[in-house]
């Protein structure tokens, strides 16, 4: 019992927790992130309706405005879209897809970038030069263009009937590939520093293999900045997903993400049914803002110079 207590006290006084307790912005960011993520994660259980259950939909409920307006209906808190789907529920389900794609894409970039950066920094020489030149070339194009390119190639290469099923994976890979460069550069720089430290040389003298040194010695010591980068990158990846979906190359409308919802709602924006586009838009802004604030705070909290 006392062990648990002391562990709790220790983590309560840990640097990161301490700086969280002393930053109102961070507390707000954590709360709104928790609400967004929680809402998305538990959508099937807490959403008021299941928007993808065609049996429960009725077109007669279509275009119901939000509940507080005159024509509103308390069954649909934020109103419904053209097919009678509850906006609040579609947002929760949409955020689920947005978050899933964002996190998966970040993980993909992270593994790819960290791996390449580690090898480039540790092995050095021509391999390093090659990897970093590829990174430079990729950096000279906007990330969204790279993602569009990969998406386009995948559409041509893969059979047409499979498009809708695998669209979400193609999207994830496309966004993931467009983002690895940052990780590779960060990790390579940190690895170059760590490689010359005596503990790495000690491991070499001991007789560890290069792979073991990279994975067990260098990797844990370069992960700090990478995790900060990843948090901020999640927001960027969600935006990229929303952009692609808005452009119509992302996830199919049968399984809409926030970006798809905004695109669909856009058609009705000028005809008076503003809520169909505006509420998913607000949800996207809140989600990205809170994840971003969280990432910024984490970067400051982990930076020893600002402590």
């Amino acid at each position, binding site marked *: 019992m006392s062990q648990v207590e002391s562990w709790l006290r220790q983590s309560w006084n840990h640097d990161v927790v301490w700086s969280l307790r002393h930053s109102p912005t961070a507390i707000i960011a954590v709360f709104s992130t928790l609400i967004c993520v929680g809402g998305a994660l538990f959508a099937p259980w807490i959403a008021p309706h299941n928007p993808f259950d065609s049996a429960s939909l009725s077109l007669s409920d279509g275009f119901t405005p939000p509940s507080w307006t005159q024509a509103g209906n308390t069954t649909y808190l934020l109103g419904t879209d053209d097919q009678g789907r509850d906006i609040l529920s579609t947002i929760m389900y949409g955020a689920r897809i947005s978050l899933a794609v964002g996190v998966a894409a970040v993980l993909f970039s992270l593994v790819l970038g960290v791996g390449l950066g580690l090898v480039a920094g540790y092995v050095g020489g021509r391999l390093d030069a090659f990897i970093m030149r590829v990174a430079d070339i990729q950096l000279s194009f906007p990330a969204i263009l790279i993602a569009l390119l990969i998406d386009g190639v995948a559409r041509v290469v893969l059979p047409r009937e499979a498009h809708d099923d695998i669209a979400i994976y193609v999207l994830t890979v496309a966004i993931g590939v467009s983002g690895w460069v940052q990780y590779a550069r960060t990790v390579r720089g940190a690895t170059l520093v760590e490689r010359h430290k005596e503990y790495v040389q000690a491991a070499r003298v001991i*007789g*560890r293999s290069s792979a073991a040194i990279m994975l067990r*010695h260098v990797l844990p010591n370069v992960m700090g900045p990478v995790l900060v980068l990843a948090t901020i990158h999640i927001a960027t990846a969600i935006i990229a997903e929303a952009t692609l979906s808005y452009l119509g190359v992302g996830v199919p409308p049968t399984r809409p993400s926030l970006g798809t919802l905004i695109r669909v709602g856009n058609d009705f924006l000028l005809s008076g049914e503003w809520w169909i586009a505006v509420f998913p838009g607000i949800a996207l802004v809140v989600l990205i803002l809170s994840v971003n604030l969280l990432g910024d705070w984490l970067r400051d909290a982990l930076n020893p110079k600002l402590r």
Partner: protein
Amino acid sequence: MRVEKIGRDFDVSRPWLNRVLEREPRRSLCAVNEVSFSIRKGETLALVGESGCGKSTVARMIVGLHTPSRGRIVFDGADLADPQSAPLRRRMQMIFQDPYASLNPRWRVRAIVAEPIVAHGLVRDQARLAARVSELLAQVGLVAEDGDKFPHEFSGGQRQRISIARALSANPEFLVCDEPTSALDVSVQAQILNLMKDLQTRLGLTYLFISHNLAVVAHIATRVGVMYLGSLVEIADAKQLFERPRHPYTRMLIDAIPDLQMTGKARTPVAGEVPNPLAPPSGCAFHPRCPHADGRCRSERPELITQEPGSAVACQAIGRRVGLDHSSL
């Protein structure tokens, strides 16, 4: 066990590839030049010299962190450049200068100390591994519970003890110590030096001890080699070297040691500074600072000549200076 070595190194420092294209020639820096010595089992050979004299490069070549560009290193009869001799590496370990950088900050002490055992697959049984780590920690004056902590929870001296425990864990016979106490405070330095001496007698270790501090070297070494600008200028038994230094540079270093007993008395400062190794002086590298230099020193590079068994000096003036020495000392 013998470490017989005729090692030489050649470090190439070149400007970036792009600058090579801009008609800048490749430049090479000779960090270590034709250094030869041998270490007998159970003795402590110290290499001393000022910064940039190549003593650390020699240490790093021996443990395999740098590959020598010329010459060879022989350990217990086998050439270390030979891939067949890789298993020999277990028998030599290194202790580094900076106890704050030489331990991985994210590992627990237990894992740090166990690393060589795990890397060489010496003990596979977890319980026996834990027992061995506790034994090693006890051997360097720490307690078994310290194994669960992280390096930042220890002071500099304790970290150096952890470093020593790690070096000992694979049962090596030969330890290369690169300035093991220069980052420590004096009272802690004494602890570490005493510990190293204890371990040497108990485990029959052989040390190569790199240091710039002659007083420390006098305390721990049985033989001493003095290096200047990449070359060995004198090597002799410790007692003999300190009582009768023969190379003018050795004498200069000994004179420069602050003497606590003669308080207030100034040392005789030596003129000049260590030359740039990219443009070493011709002939004997020490001649611009040497009080005995003559024309021959400026043109000819002196060889390391054995004068008595176990001692050798690289100085041309030595013969004609003998009479002069005894009067000036």
